[in-house]
């Protein structure tokens, strides 16, 4: 039996138009309010709202307020000899990434992936937003988001892990300090503005805390039994931007307005 057989058309329309409202009302009624326990957990977390910017130059190898390749102003990954040799070779290849005549250039992974990945995301020139909740903290950096789960979970089982740009991150709070562990990061990503890379065995530990009203600090230590002879540590700081600042528009890669395409494995500049 069709509905038209028992109800005038105009009334059918009226009834059908009400259905979405009833469904919306039903959904609203089922909304789960924040529990007192969650509100309590929230109240113990720090307020890192707003936009933040990296202090000093982008990159992890640079001493803050120093610059890349400034003598005496540069840290260095404590590589094992074979990784050090490759790093030195790749430094030369990277210097020629825009050179059409060079036989074997190396293009920055940030350009290739249109993403910083770990650990470079700790030291980018883009805006940072720290969204802190009891269950997770999201660190939003341009169009990349780090998901740091603080709900007590462990890492996924090994057979559910594969290397990714940002890896898998879990964390916990020690007072007002967020302690983050990250594993399963893709190899070949530049850790810096130079081709400092790590293996997929790299394990990152970060301690993120607020050290004054307008400064966040991230102390990071990396262990890597494949690439590093000993743990590598670095610290970055972020300065709070003016209240009301608008987040920067994420930069696109490719598309009709991108005049820096990668052609034949080389960075190019398109003139008009």
């Amino acid at each position, binding site marked *: 039996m069709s509905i038209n057989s028992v109800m005038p058309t105009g009334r059918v329309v009226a009834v059908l138009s009400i259905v979405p409202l009833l469904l919306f009302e039903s959904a609203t009624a089922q909304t789960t309010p924040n529990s007192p326990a969650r509100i309590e957990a929230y109240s113990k977390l720090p307020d890192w709202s707003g936009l933040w910017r990296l202090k000093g130059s982008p990159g992890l190898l640079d001493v803050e307020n120093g610059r890349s390749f400034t003598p005496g102003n540069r840290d260095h990954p404590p590589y094992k000899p074979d990784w050090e040799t490759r790093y030195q070779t790749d430094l030369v290849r990277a210097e020629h990434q825009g050179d059409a005549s060079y036989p074997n250039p190396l293009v920055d992974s940030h350009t290739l992936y249109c993403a910083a990945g770990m650990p470079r995301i700790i030291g980018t020139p883009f805006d940072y937003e720290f969204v802190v909740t009891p269950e997770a903290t999201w660190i939003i950096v341009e169009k990349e988001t780090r998901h740091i789960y603080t709900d007590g979970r462990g890492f996924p089982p090994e057979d559910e892990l594969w290397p990714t740009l940002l890896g898998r991150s879990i964390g916990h709070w020690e007072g007002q300090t967020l302690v983050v562990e990250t594993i399963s990061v893709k190899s070949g990503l530049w850790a810096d503005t130079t081709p400092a890379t790590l293996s997929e065995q790299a394990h990152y530990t970060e301690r993120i805390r607020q050290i004054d009203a307008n400064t966040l600090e991230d102390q990071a230590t990396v262990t890597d039994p494949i690439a590093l002879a000993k743990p590598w540590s670095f610290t970055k700081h972020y300065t709070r931007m003016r209240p009301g600042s608008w987040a920067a528009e994420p*930069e696109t890669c490719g598309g009709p307005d991108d005049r820096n395409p990668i052609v034949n494995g080389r960075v190019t500049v398109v003139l008009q």
Partner: protein
Amino acid sequence: MHMKVNITSRLIQLTGLTVILAGMPLLGHHSFAGFDLSKTITLTGTVKEFQWVNPHSWIQLMVTDASGATVEWSIEMSAPSSLIRQGWKPKMLKPGDQVTVTAHPLRDGRPGGSFVTATLADGTHIGGSPTGDAQTRN
């Protein structure tokens, strides 16, 4: 209209703006490896087009060279969101505007450069270098 090219390895300082050169300026997604950051040129010409686009903005500048020929220069700037924090506006340059631009030239000799500063017709000096660090871009 004329072209003035001054090549210098010194750091450039203009009205409160210090541009510090990095050896390998790969700060964001897009590499600036094609530009020679050890050199700075000065170009005076007429704006053909101001491209306020993502990922990087561009000034297309018509410049008369020493032989009297008009050459179109492409000057690459940083992202619109970065430029606006340094005082730029999307319609700050219009076709026909006379400007003087300093830039790091392309290594391959083509008429292109990485923007350092501009001096507008009203005398305003303004930066917006894509190789500026996080603080100068803030």
